[in-house]
């Protein structure tokens, strides 16, 4: 998957604001790729371009033609769920579009939940649930049909710590089982380092910062990675390398 974005601009109150510049990226099939960066540095915009939801940019993205096997977990999970559907219908939306009957969908969803040891009240409606539960449902909706490309835009933001840990195990297990590409956005560096094969650090554009990419780093730790890895020296070294780079960038401003 090749993405080349020379420039992406937004109109805001009659002024043009550039959010992405000089992104040249090649993501391997089956790679676990994390995008890390501060708020409002254009992470979500980049994902929408990759997946073809946003076509107004200068550059090329060769993935946009094949949207058929993509799962996209939206950052604004509350808005992205269908409030008129119960959890079963929300999670099995892909199967519903493919004409599967309710019993078949229930079977598929239940076997997925069992596989990953998750329990969810499938009869409940989104508005009857906590934010964390809603986020979990919106995440499962994109995972359940095991797409070749899974795009996760800060999928764990509203989960409590316990569920966060569990989901980071599940997502690694899932990646191993399915073998698809995962693009994972986060503004949590530890989380990104724990999950990624490679991590791309982005920055906010301004008069001094001319490029969106601050650096791309390989993360070579053995799997399965447990949360204890965050405490290890190897990870600490990589993390301080990234943070030093970010600090330098700040000083240049």
């Amino acid at each position: 998957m090749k993405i080349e974005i020379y420039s992406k601009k937004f109109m805001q109150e009659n002024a043009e604001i550039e959010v992405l510049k000089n992104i040249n990226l090649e993501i391997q099939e089956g790679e676990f790729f994390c995008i890390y960066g501060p708020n409002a540095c254009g992470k979500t915009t980049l994902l929408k371009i990759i997946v073809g939801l946003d076509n107004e940019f200068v550059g090329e993205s060769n993935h946009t033609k094949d949207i058929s096997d993509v799962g996209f977990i939206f950052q604004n999970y509350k808005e992205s769920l269908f409030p008129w559907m119960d959890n079963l219908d929300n999670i099995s939306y892909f199967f519903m579009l493919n004409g599967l009957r309710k019993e078949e969908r229930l079977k598929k969803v239940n076997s997925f939940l069992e596989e990953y040891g998750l329990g969810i009240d499938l009869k409940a409606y989104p508005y009857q649930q906590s934010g964390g539960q809603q986020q979990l449902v919106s995440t499962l909706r994109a995972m359940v049909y095991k797409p070749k490309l899974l795009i996760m835009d800060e999928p764990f933001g509203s989960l409590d710590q316990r569920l966060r840990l569990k989901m980071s195990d599940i997502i690694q297990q899932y990646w191993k089982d399915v073998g698809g590409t995962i693009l994972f956005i986060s503004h949590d560096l530890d989380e990104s380092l724990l999950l990624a094969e490679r991590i791309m650090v982005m920055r906010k554009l301004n008069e001094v910062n001319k490029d969106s990419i601050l650096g791309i780093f390989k993360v070579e730790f053995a799997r399965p990675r447990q949360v204890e890895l965050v405490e290890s020296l190897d990870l600490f070294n990589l993390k301080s390398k990234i943070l030093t780079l970010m600090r330098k960038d700040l000083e240049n401003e």
Partner: protein
Amino acid sequence: MNKRLGHGIILIGPLIIVALWYILPRLGVIKEFFLPTPIRVGKEVLNLFGTKNVLTDIGYTLYRTVVGFFLAGLWGIPAGLVLGYYAKLYRMFEVVIDFFRSLPATALIPLALIVFAIGETARIFIVLFSCGLVLIINSAYGVKSCNITRLQVAEITGASTRQKFSTVIFREALPEIFAGLRISLSLSLILVVVSEMFIGTTVGLGQKIFDAQLMNHIAEMYGLILITGLLGYGLNKLFVLFERHIIHWGGK
């Protein structure tokens, strides 16, 4: 005090009105000829249900209201959904729709009489035309205010245009459609009662109110107005219950 009143609090307003109704003629503020006492009107209501067979009139008025309302929905909602989806088409018809919506429906009664002759067709036409316009505007607005994120979810999960409509857009539009239906139901009753006064018929609440007035049966006229009001109120309350059942996610 609040606790003791409980649900009874909603009865205070109506009780004040009935009390005023009782007292004002006694004080000589209003002549009793123009405002017969609640008791006299109450007796008339009983009389209407007894010997005067008002149930037939209620039935006819209700039947006309509901038929007109359904026929309006049958063309207004689909037309509104299509217009809402195709922005250019909406722009093409915007002026026409706004014009006819601004035109008081009652102004069309004489025209309807010429085209459809005196009878039910003219009456139903007025209702389905006016209510249909309300429904077009609300349905189109509902489609246009569809949440973009949810539409993107459908798109990215591979929904066809037809599936986008059935699984997302139509559901998104439902609250607006129901708001339009609620307005239409009230408007339908108004138009039916007015048309019963002017478009020849011998049954219907509008006709009976008009007759009572002609013959100076003032208490009977009040009774009929009361019955008509209660009919409208009941229809509205029933509809709200139905709406809450269908749009269970509303306001949550």
